[in-house]
């Protein structure tokens, strides 16, 4: 098939670069076969232009469409969700490359490239990926410039230069729009990642957290108003697990609490809740910037209160966001570390909830627990006895042996090797068996202090599980059995502790974390992190502060003021562009004589007889003679003088006379003939 229209060769270069870059940006979350077909389509275009291959025929194209559709269905098994949608868009995008028959096809491809590149920000909004997106827009703009330019200026280098200039010119306007543009909120729901949640999950079974131990990603960053508390105080509560089925711990959730609402929103406080908690002393104030987790629960120190309107406090005194956190979220929290939670007697149904153990599991533990209870009736002593056992006989390792049906029995009396969740799980089970209400809490522990900036970095490998035990009169107490086994796990940061273990960070082979023993690399990593944090705080977090900022700036936020601000600030932002245009315009070479002649013209223009563009002086005078006969003589003589001065090169002789005559030339409206 002969092409109806071919992209000019010079344009093709940036077009293909755009396609390759668009695919490259999304490499992480695209199935390999789409990447492959992208490469094939790109090569096909190249071969087409080397005139080696022909345009793909109808049969090939239809089979490709079929193959892509089948691939999508087989790969994802569904069509909803962000990633299948992106993959679908990509499939169309890649196939379009094989079907460029008109200029408009190439344009569609370029416009799609913009969309696809911007889509990247749904997956990541870190400073690096924002910069990448910004750079990726350049070749697309260059291709678009080349498509519309003439032969001279569509050479790759020249088109890129134009694109760069245009992009730079757009930056001031972009900033103004960023500051002012109202944020739309969730006008449409962004489909979620199909890769599921990152970070801690909503249930816990043996071995879950080893995955997190290998992950060096940042979970969240915390900025304290005062000094950062001691490492051992930093228990970031995320989830409370009260239900246990013998293997898996999970939340009881709202349905476990059937005596009222489970969540309390800041705008609708429920009095009853504040009665069960006693807070002492001054609160600790801090702001958390949470990375996307795709789940709604938030992390905070014990007993938190947040004023953010989308953050609710749950019945088990942790924070829950209104929607799953799909992009960075900033919230500020007040926490009272010195507190008593539910010190009064638990209602019967609550006690049953926190004491429940599944039947048919771990018979040995149940027997031992009941025996110990008789020997040691005091709850605190019982806890200490169990912790002493851990301390004496147990080993902390990230590679525990596998467990069978009776997970707690096998762990407590047989393998005696494991990490936090093993300890938390067995401890809570033991306590419940001994008749002490207890529950598992999952979240993060500790964090890495940034050496130069005043904030704390909490990584995925800081994920931790511990226990809370209820004692009458004292309420819920935090007990961390892991601390009994490996106190350094709590005192030191996790990364320092496990630096030498091979397994640590096995999931992030290219992470800078792996190289933290190299000093300058470690400093570089922390520097990058502080940049990223500042980016998140000031740029991504601006959405939350926009209203306050605009209020300070404009006095009041109303459409008129915003419009006025956009016009003014936009004008100022574009001023450099105007100045550049003004400076680079074609210079007028008007000399004094020309300026005087223009004065002469403008005087006539004032009485409604403007000179038309391209009208010579003589023709103009001729027209004036018809339209304003009373001026004819003066105009004629002025025109003659101008002509002689200008075109007969008798400037010296005529210039003064022209000037003198012009000063006497004062046409008025009465000179002009009114139409009969």
């Amino acid at each position, binding site marked *: 098939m002969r092409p109806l229209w071919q992209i000019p060769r010079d344009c093709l270069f940036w077009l293909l670069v755009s396609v390759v870059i668009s695919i490259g940006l999304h490499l992480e979350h695209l199935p390999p076969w789409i990447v492959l077909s992208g490469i094939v389509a790109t090569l096909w275009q190249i071969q087409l232009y080397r005139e080696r291959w022909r345009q793909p025929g109808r049969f090939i194209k239809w089979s490709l469409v079929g193959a892509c559709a089948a691939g999508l269905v087989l790969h994802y098994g569904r069509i909803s969700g962000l990633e299948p949608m992106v993959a679908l868009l990509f499939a169309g995008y890649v196939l379009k490359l094989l079907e460029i028959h008109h200029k408009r096809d190439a344009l569609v491809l370029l416009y799609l490239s913009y969309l696809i590149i911007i889509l990247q920000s749904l997956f990541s909004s870190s400073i690096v990926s924002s910069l990448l997106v910004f750079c990726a827009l350049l070749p697309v703009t260059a291709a678009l410039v080349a498509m519309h330019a003439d032969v001279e200026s569509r050479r790759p280098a020249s088109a890129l230069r134009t694109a760069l200039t245009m992009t730079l010119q757009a930056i001031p306007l972009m900033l103004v729009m960023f500051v002012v543009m109202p944020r739309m909120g969730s006008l449409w729901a962004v489909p979620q990642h199909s890769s599921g949640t990152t970070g801690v999950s909503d249930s816990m079974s043996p071995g879950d957290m080893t995955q997190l131990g290998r992950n060096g990603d940042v979970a969240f960053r915390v900025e304290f108003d005062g000094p950062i508390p001691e490492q051992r105080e930093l228990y970031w509560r995320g989830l409370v697990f009260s239900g246990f089925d013998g293997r898996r711990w999970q939340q009881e959730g709202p349905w476990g609490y059937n005596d009222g609402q489970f969540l309390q929103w800041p705008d609708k406080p429920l009095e009853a809740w504040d009665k069960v908690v006693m807070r002492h002393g001054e609160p600790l104030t801090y702001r958390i910037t949470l990375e996307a987790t795709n789940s709604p629960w938030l992390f905070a120190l014990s007993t938190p209160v947040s004023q953010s309107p989308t953050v609710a406090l749950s019945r088990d005194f942790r924070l829950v966001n209104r929607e799953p956190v799909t992009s960075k979220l900033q919230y500020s929290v007040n926490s009272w570390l010195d507190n008593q939670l539910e010190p009064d007697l638990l209602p019967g149904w609550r006690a049953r909830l926190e004491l429940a153990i599944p039947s048919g599991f771990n018979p040995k533990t149940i027997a031992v627990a009941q025996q110990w209870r008789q020997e040691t009736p005091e709850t605190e002593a019982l806890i200490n006895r169990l912790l002493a056992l851990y301390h004496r006989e147990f080993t902390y390792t990230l590679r525990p042996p596998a467990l069978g049906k009776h997970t707690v029995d096998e762990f407590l009396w047989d393998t005696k090797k494991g990490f936090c969740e093993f300890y938390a799980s067995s401890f809570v089970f033991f306590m419940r068996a001994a008749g002490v209400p207890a529950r598992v809490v999952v979240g993060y522990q500790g964090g890495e202090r940034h050496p130069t900036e005043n904030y704390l970095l909490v990584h995925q490998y800081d994920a931790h599980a511990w226990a809370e035990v209820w004692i009458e009169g004292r309420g819920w107490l935090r007990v961390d059995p892991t601390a009994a086994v490996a106190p350094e796990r709590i005192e030191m940061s996790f990364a320092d502790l496990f630096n030498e273990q091979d397994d640590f960070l096995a999931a992030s082979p290219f992470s800078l974390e792996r190289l933290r023993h190299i000093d300058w690399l470690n400093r570089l990593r922390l520097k990058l992190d502080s940049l990223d944090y500042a980016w998140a705080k000031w740029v991504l977090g601006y959405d939350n502060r926009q209203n306050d900022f605009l209020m300070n700036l404009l006095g009041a936020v109303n459409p008129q003021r915003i419009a006025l601000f956009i016009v003014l600030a936009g004008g100022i932002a574009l001023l450099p562009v105007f100045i550049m245009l003004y400076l680079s315009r074609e210079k007028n070479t008007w000399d004094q004589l*020309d300026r005087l002649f223009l004065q002469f013209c403008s005087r006539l223009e004032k009485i409604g007889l403007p000179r038309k*563009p*391209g009208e010579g*002086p*003589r023709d103009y005078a001729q027209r004036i003679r018809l339209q304003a006969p009373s001026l004819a003589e003066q105009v004629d003589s002025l025109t003659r003088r101008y*002509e002689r001065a200008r*075109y*007969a*090169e008798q400037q010296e002789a005529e210039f003064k006379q022209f000037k003198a005559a012009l000063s006497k030339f004062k046409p008025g409206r009465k000179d002009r003939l009114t139409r009969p």
Partner: protein
Amino acid sequence: MSKQSQEITAAIIERVESVLVGKQDSVRLALACLYAGGHLLIEDLPGMGKTTLAQALAAAIGLSYTRVQFTSDLLPADIIGVSVYDRNKAAFDFHPGPLFNQLVLADEINRTTPKTQSALLEAMAEGQISVEGETRQLPHPFYVIATQNPLSQSGTFPLPESQLDRFLMRLRLGYPDPEAERQLLSGADPRLKLAELKRGITPAQLEAIQAAVNQVKVSGSLVDYLQRLLQFTRSSADIEYGISPRGGIAVLKSARAWALMAGRDYVIPEDIQAIFAPVCAHRLPVSGGEHGADNFIQQALNSVDII
């Protein structure tokens, strides 16, 4: 000189006008073309007075004149001349063809083959002819007035752009205005007057005028204006390529002749505007037919400011 040339011009125009009624503008342009030393292409329908104009001009200027009717079987030798063997002298004797005249009227130039067209065009460009290894000078002045018929193009060989470029101007005569036509219809056949037409200028005067044309002043700002006009034709999206520098020189030369005919020794923008269309229209490849170029030129003249 300029006053004198103005008078001479008026006399010539009056004489030509007595034959070709009501075509003063075309006559002036044709005369300007001859003053500027350029060749003229007249393109119009049959019966519009193309040949009459050429004959009247020749007579009024008093140049030696031939008319060649171009046909498809015309050969270069037919217009250049041939060497004939003279038995008495026992040598070849060159018999000059119709080109060896001061003014050649090439009628229906697009009817002949490219070969013959090129022979004519070489003569137009060089002012000389190479025959049988010998270069022969053509008389001075040497003018070609060619005519062509834009309609019934079957069996014709349209002149390519490069050859159209050799003509300084292209004129279209058009229908006469009603009054002129009435005069034409009621009077005697104006062609009868052709025989009586007397020359209005001596060869020496013509030479002097041609020398004077080159003396007409062109100021810097006028050159700027012309340059802007040319630039406009080159940067427009409607036109594939604009007026060449040679075209620009042709404009300036014609504008000088036009100024001289108006009795001035300097060129003003109106001179350029007057001759811009005849000089440039046939040099512009415009899509949209014959009127495309004229419309475009009008647009250029209207949009480019003179200062």
